């Protein structure tokens, strides 16, 4: 049996939704090294896709190609019907629809938490400051740190910083959120608070693509898990399929190492 019943059911459930991210034969080279070898995948609207795999397998490169922080050299990437090309207008459009959360948070250290969140709504969406600020406060409430609005990022703990970073991305009201190892730089006791926010987000129906090593999170909220190795997608399936009945040897080896 190639594909088990649960995966088939999940595919059926997602089948009638619109495509949000479509990647066809995406290639990416760093000099002679090929980081992505013909990655092909489709992520549906409202889907939570978790990408996992050993380090150096191209997970981060792939997710960074999707909002053009890295430039792919071959294949096509289409986000919400907009093709990612050299056209600046398309790039801007895609970036304002796609939020991204980084491993190192990348908050702006010279701005307060509130200014970090309102920067893009004010300068990209041209929102009035008052409106942007009340939305920022609502978002801080949502990620559980409303009392930190006036502080600077350097005054917050890692978990709080990452939650501010999530709020900052949400302030642009994106249709897709990309998470690039959001908990890898955090102390163990802070991982939970960030994962809780991400779970709440996942249930809210936003499209999410998450690169992570948090298998508990993947098992709980992922619609599909994609396993990458050596720049290729090796296996795709539901969490049930992935954790109980993986078909590929490389997947089995990976799971035996991390579980």
């Amino acid at each position, binding site marked *: 049996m190639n594909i088990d019943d649960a995966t088939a059911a999940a595919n059926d459930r997602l089948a009638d939704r619109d495509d949000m991210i479509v990647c066809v034969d995406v290639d990416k080279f760093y000099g002679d090294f090929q980081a992505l070898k013909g990655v092909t995948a489709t992520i549906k609207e409202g889907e939570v896709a978790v990408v996992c795999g050993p380090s150096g397998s191209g997970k981060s490169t792939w997710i960074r190609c999707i909002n053009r922080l890295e430039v792919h050299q071959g294949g096509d990437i289409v986000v919400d019907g907009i093709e990612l090309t050299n056209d600046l207008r398309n790039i801007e459009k895609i970036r304002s629809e796609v939020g991204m959360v980084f491993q190192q948070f990348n908050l702006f250290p010279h701005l307060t938490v509130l200014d970090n969140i309102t920067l893009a709504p004010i300068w990209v969406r041209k929102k009035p*400051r008052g409106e942007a600020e009340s939305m920022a406060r609502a978002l801080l409430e949502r990620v559980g740190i409303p009392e930190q609005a006036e502080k600077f990022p350097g005054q917050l703990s890692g978990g709080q910083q990452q939650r501010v970073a999530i709020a900052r991305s949400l302030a642009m009201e994106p249709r897709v959120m990309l998470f690039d190892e959001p908990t890898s730089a955090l102390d163990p006791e802070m991982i939970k608070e960030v994962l809780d926010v991400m779970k709440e987000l996942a249930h809210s129906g936003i499209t999410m693509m998450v690169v992570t090593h948090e298998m508990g999170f993947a098992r709980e909220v992922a619609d599909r898990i994609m396993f990458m190795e050596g720049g290729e997608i090796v296996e795709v399936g539901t969490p049930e399929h992935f954790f109980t009945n993986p078909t590929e040897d490389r997947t089995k080896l990976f799971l035996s190492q991390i579980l």
Partner: protein
Amino acid sequence: MATNSPPSIHHERPPLYRDVTVVKWVVQIVALLLTLGALWFLANQAGDNLRASNVPTDYDFLSVNPGIDLSSGIDTDPDTGGRALWVGMVNTLRMAVAGILVATILGVIVGLARLSNNWLLKKIGTVFVETLRNVPLLVQILFYGAVFASLDRVTADVGPINGWLHISNKGLSMPRAHIADGFYQWAVVLLIGLVVANFLRKRRIAQQDATGEETYPILSAFGLMVVVAIIGWFIHPIFGFIGNIFEALSSLVSSVPETVLQLVIGALCVGSSAYWIRGFLNSRRTPAGLAKLTDDDYFRMIFAAVGGVIGAVFFLVLWPGLSSWMINSASDLFEVLGNKFGNGRSGRPLDVDLPNIVQTGKFPNYGPSGLNFSIGFAAVFFGVVFYTAAFVAEIVRGGILAVPKGQTEAAASLGLRRSTALRRVIIPQALRVMLPPLGNQYLNLTKNTSLAIAVGYSDIVQVGQTVYNQTGKTLPVVSIWMFFYLSCSLSISVIVNFFNVRMKIVER
């Protein structure tokens, strides 16, 4: 089991030479006495030696006609040595301020060019930096001087636009705008306009924040300023009454008795030291009460108290002339201001003079009515500007590269355009890294203007050297140089530090 009572601790005073408190105090006091003693000894020795070798150390030359002509400046034929040095200082300051402005702008452009993706721009930037910073500044200044000296000789109708713009081996001469009769009253109008414009700007910003509509706050404030300036041009004489106020102030100040000011100065000395001690104690206070003071803290407070008393005694007893001098100068100042703002001044605020060429002796030269830049000025100016710009370019490049790549990526992923990201995210953080080394370059530029002596531009060093060649007062002139450059450097440091503190990133 032993008993529950705490073990009895026997306190034993250590002998004095092992007691930390005593040793610390003795060392502090001995160090103070040694420093004072060394200073006194050096001053004494220097004084004796100078007297013995007949080196003059007086400043009489400041009020004596030095009989020298200066090549450029606000007064090329100064009456006194002091006036001559003052002209030199103004020339140095002019050069430093203009140099800092232009070097910064040029340096930022070159630094950004070196970071751009454009191959040609990048190479031009690299060649600029590597050539200019590797050739000694003196060589560069001499080179520019030689190039400019090879321009056409000045004649009665030298071009390129005769009567408006002249370029020759005497330098550049162009129309000069200057303050005229009614300027000060007009300035009052401008000041009022500035306050109103700032108010308008703030209101417009608030309006923009409230509605999201573009209200152009800076543009509208600027427009208001232009309107106010034009109206003020015609109505400024109505502010002539301000002159009367200053006249009244002048007579009020001159009626203050000397003893009152004397006592005020003494009280200020004691009071400020008491104020400092109070602030110091407050800063050491914890929520639970006064924290335990260390010996150092006591030493500082005693030092402050003694300093205050010494200051009071000094001003009250040793320098009683100070207060009469202060009263007279303040009164004079107000009188001058009263005259400047006075009722009788109803002419134009600003005026423009066209350059002229005069021939007093054998050769024609630029007359005083135009704005003249001598060849010496140009040589030194281009020298310090290009040389410093090369270093500023490297500082700008380093500052921008010092901002982590993640910042650019985060800004890009939020959809910020590159220009917005630069302005709002990258440059504010780069400035924090750039400011301290930029301050150093500004200090270097200011001090490097002293190389003007090589091309005969009348800066403070060149003028000072001429003065002591005429009068033989080497040491006094050198002391004035040192004091002048020290003041310039400290002022620049204060300004740079002010911005440095403001740019600091809050952590914890």
